[in-house]
C-alpha cells in the first residue's frame, strides 16, 4: 500500500480536482463508485449548509457507519479518501 500510516486504514482513494482516480488501494481499489458518491457528497454538503452560520471551512468530512468510516479531506487540490475500520470498543 502506498500510504499505510493511518491507523485502521483498510482502503484509500486519491482523486484529482476533476474527480478522476489518481491512485487507490485496499478496499477502495479502483472503486470509482465510492469516489463519485463522496465527491458529490462534499458538493452537496457545500450547497446545503448555511455559510453564514460557519465562519470557517471544514478540514475533514467523515461518513461514519457502525463498523467503518470514510474520511475525506482536501490537500494540494486533491481529494484524499480513506476507509477506516472502527474498533469494536469504539
Amino acid at each position, binding site marked *: 500500500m502506498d500510504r499505510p*500510516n*493511518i491507523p485502521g486504514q483498510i482502503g484509500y482513494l486519491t482523486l484529482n480536482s476533476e474527480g478522476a482516480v489518481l491512485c487507490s488501494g485496499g478496499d477502495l481499489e479502483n472503486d470509482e463508485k465510492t469516489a463519485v458518491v463522496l465527491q458529490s457528497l462534499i458538493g452537496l454538503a457545500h450547497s446545503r449548509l448555511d455559510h453564514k452560520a460557519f465562519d470557517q*471551512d471544514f*478540514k*475533514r468530512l467523515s461518513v461514519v457507519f457502525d463498523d467503518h468510516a470514510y474520511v475525506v479531506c*482536501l490537500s494540494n*487540490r486533491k481529494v*484524499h479518501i480513506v476507509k477506516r475500520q472502527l474498533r469494536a470498543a469504539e
Partner: protein
Amino acid sequence: MVKYSVCAYFNNQIVPVCFSDDILNRNPNDLPKKTDEQSALTRILQETATNVIDVAALDSHNLQQHDYLDRVKSYNVKVQQVLTANKASLAPKLKTCILQDVPQPDKVLGADLLSLDDSELISSSVTAALNAINDIKVDHKEDLVVPFGLGLNC
C-alpha cells in the same frame, strides 16, 4: 510567324486542343521539357518529404538518458506554470467544495474519529428534530376562503 491553333468543334463550342507555340517548341529540342520534368519531380519529392515523418531519420538524433530527464523536468515545470495560471478554470468542482485545502492530509485523515457519545448525541438530536418536524400540523379553525364585502352589498 503565323500562329495557328487546332480546335475541335464540339457541342456548338470551339474547344482549343493545342496551340502552335507548343508544337513549335516541342519539336526542335527536348531540353526545356526535361528541366520541367525534373523540377516537377523535385517539387514532388520535397512535398513528400515535408509530409512524411521519417522515423529512421529521427532515430539518428539519439537522445541520451539525461536529455530525456531534462525534458521531463522542463515539461513538468511548464505544466505546473499552466496549472497555477489556470487554477480557477481547471478546478470548478473544488470551488464548490466544503473542504479547505490542508497541507498535511495524513494528519487530518488520521485524527481521531468522532467519539461514540458524540455520534449518539447527533443521532438523537436529529431524530428529535425529525420527530418535531413531522409533528407540525395545521390546526384548521376558520374557512380558508372568506367572502369579502358581501355583507355591505346585501
